[in-house]
């Protein structure tokens, strides 16, 4: 078989040992790779009851069989662990180049166990492995760390690292790679920090062999053609990137503004894709093997927020700007750069600041606790607080634990906008009912990348459905969740699905691996992965009661704009969703379903 390198690297940081293990081909076939295989390993090796920041938790970096191949966007890798933010399963997905480089060293997965006595980094030099002291880079930003460790190892090495936020166990810490790409969500950076693991540095020279090279290349070429012809992946994404959504979602009236107090932002155009393209955009950029190239290389050329980097993407610009009521693009961009350098999830960071802003404006947080006023729309306060959070200083120490902990500490957990303690992304579920269901049922907490029903509710991919209605949304959510789990396991970018379908991805996977996959089986594997994640969460102590949304979303109507009067009608969708999943009324998978999925 091809695609897989057939090898796992197990790094025990407590003992300081590195062991190469053979990848079980049966397991690889059943779970594909990436999210699926990483979750299976976590499920088998870690008690779901584990303290996420203890040495007993494991941190798994997983690639897919298409990672490091010629498949378009085949550069993805995932970080899988138990989340300290949510207490649920975490799988955070990133692009860039490091995923492919891990494959070039001959590994499909790296499993980190235990905790190093002092800060270390892992140096994968092709087939050689070394755990090295990281004292010189501990305390440094992700950018400084990457530059220093490249100088210490190989100029062309690829690096993923945590910043000060991860070192200080901030629950919203990310793992950054290639400086600007993030395994951002669910606090995976805090788990890395708890292991005293500062970075992974990788340089490989091996190839990724595929089972049927001729057929594989033909399948890849067909996909590249479709992606180029698609108005989204061949036009919109390269030209404007994801921030083009700001004005579109604002026009629909479900752009969450000022901690979801409104559905439209009067300053949206100032932080939109159009304005970014006209002002700070230098060029677009792609990840490994990517033929879409949606990343935004930007520069603020003057003023107090002068600087250069990448972003803001739609989600980052929304969280740091619109959710906080800040329409100063330079301030939002600076906050984005800081999140990347200090190693924090931009969504979680922005929503945490927005939560604190609402609590302050309502008088629930005294100014003396913060040290300064913290009002919606204050760009200076935003940038100041983001830096305080990254270094966990002063009031920032608490806010770096995420919005839920801030709201809970000040006695108003209902003002945290998220699900399973993870912040909502940039769509108000009151205006897009499918997203409400998706947020409530997402295994890793509120997330737009686990079942993106905006495709049908706004853009008609593959067909248009009224965002205000609940009919049919349970079925769409389930289908999208399962397909996404499949795509994430292959090692390609989810953005491809705007130009191609699972029926285009399947030939690439099949010819790469030669494993005899059918399309139907691929979708069944997606469903298996979703149910396994669910089982992990149930064993971790979560239940159907956690499949819910804040009172603001369920009971408080959007006050104005196109979605005026709307609330999240979760009760109309959740029972049908459970039924379609083959789960009982309390959200537990039935024995028959587990048997069908070879999980029971």
């Amino acid at each position, binding site marked *: 078989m091809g695609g897989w390198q057939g090898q796992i690297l197990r790094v025990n940081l407590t003992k300081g040992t590195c062991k190469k293990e053979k990848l079980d081909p049966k397991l690889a076939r059943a779970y594909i790779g990436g999210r699926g295989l990483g979750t299976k390993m976590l499920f088998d090796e870690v008690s779901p009851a584990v303290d996420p920041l203890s040495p007993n938790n494991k941190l798994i970096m997983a690639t897919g069989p298409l990672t490091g191949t010629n498949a378009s966007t085949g550069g993805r890798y995932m970080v899988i662990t138990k989340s300290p933010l949510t207490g649920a399963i975490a799988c955070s997905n990133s692009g860039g180049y490091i995923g492919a480089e891990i494959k070039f060293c001959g590994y499909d997965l790296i499993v980190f166990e235990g905790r190093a006595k002092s800060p270390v980094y892992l140096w994968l030099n092709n087939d050689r492995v070394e755990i090295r002291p990281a004292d010189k880079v501990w305390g440094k930003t992700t950018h400084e760390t990457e530059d220093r460790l490249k100088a210490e190892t190989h100029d062309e090495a690829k690096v993923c690292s945590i910043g000060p936020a991860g070192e200080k166990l901030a629950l919203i810490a990310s793992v950054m790679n290639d400086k600007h790409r993030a395994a951002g969500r669910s606090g995976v950076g805090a788990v890395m920090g708890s292991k005293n693991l500062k970075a992974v540095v990788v340089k490989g020279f091996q190839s990724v062999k595929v089972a049927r090279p001729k057929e594989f290349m033909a399948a890849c070429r067909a996909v590249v053609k479709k992606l180029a012809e698609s*108005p*989204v992946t061949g*036009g*919109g*994404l390269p*030209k*404007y*990137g*994801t*921030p*083009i*959504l700001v*004005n*579109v979602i604002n*026009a*629909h*009236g479900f752009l969450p503004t000022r901690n979801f107090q409104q559905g439209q932002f009067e300053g949206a*155009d100032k932080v939109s*894709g*159009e304005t970014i393209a006209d002002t700070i955009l230098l060029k677009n950029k792609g990840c490994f093997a990517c033929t879409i190239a*949606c*990343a935004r290389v930007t520069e603020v050329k003057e003023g107090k927020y002068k600087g250069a980097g990448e*972003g803001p*993407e*739609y*989600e*980052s610009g*929304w969280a740091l700007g619109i959710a906080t009521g800040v329409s100063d693009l330079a301030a939002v961009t600076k906050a984005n750069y800081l999140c990347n350098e200090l190693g924090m999830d931009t969504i979680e960071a922005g929503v945490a600041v927005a939560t604190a802003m609402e609590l302050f404006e309502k008088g629930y947080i005294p100014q003396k606790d913060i040290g300064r006023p913290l009002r919606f729309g204050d760009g200076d306060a935003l940038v100041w607080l983001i830096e305080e959070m990254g270094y966990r200083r002063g009031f920032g120490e608490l806010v770096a634990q995420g919005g839920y902990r801030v709201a809970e500490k000040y006695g108003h957990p209902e003002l945290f906008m998220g699900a399973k303690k993870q912040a909502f*992304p*940039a769509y108000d579920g009151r205006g897009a009912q499918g997203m409400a269901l998706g947020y409530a049922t997402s295994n890793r907490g509120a997330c*737009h*990348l686990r079942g*993106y029903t*905006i*495709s049908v509710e*706004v*853009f*008609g*991919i593959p067909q*248009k459905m*009224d965002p205000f209605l609940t009919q049919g949304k349970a079925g769409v959510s389930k289908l999208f969740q399962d397909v996404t789990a499949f795509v994430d396991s292959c090692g390609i970018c*989810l*953005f491809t699905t*705007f130009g191609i379908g699972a029926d285009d991805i399947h030939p690439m996977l099949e010819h790469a691996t030669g494993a005899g996959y059918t399309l139907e089986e691929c979708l069944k594997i997606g469903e298996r992965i979703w149910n396994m994640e669910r089982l992990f969460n149930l064993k971790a102590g979560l239940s159907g009661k956690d499949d819910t949304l804040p009172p603001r979303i369920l009971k408080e109507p959007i006050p104005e*704009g*196109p*979605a005026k009067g709307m609330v999240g009608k979760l009760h109309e969708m959740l029972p049908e969703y459970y039924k379609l999943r083959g789960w009982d009324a309390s959200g537990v998978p039935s024995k028959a379903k587990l048997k069908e999925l070879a999980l029971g």
Partner: protein
Amino acid sequence: MAVVTFLGEVRKAAGQARVDVEAESVRGLLAALCQAVSPAFATLLFKDGALQPDVEILVNGRNIEFLKMLDTSLRQTDQVTIFYSGVRGFPGG
């Protein structure tokens, strides 16, 4: 007059972000726009007399597909948004 907002590539083609248009329906509004903006603008919106499939039109935030399509009537203060689905939805990074 209805307030028309152009997004993305439509904004570029129109050469402006916003324009006020007097019209009683979406059909009338588009006809007025094609005259007011440029003849080339018409080809971006229509092909063989029909609306291009990748043109999205919202009236007060509701897609005209959930209203009465081109026959959707307009009032003085209505907000109309026009964009291409070519720059449509993607999971934001």
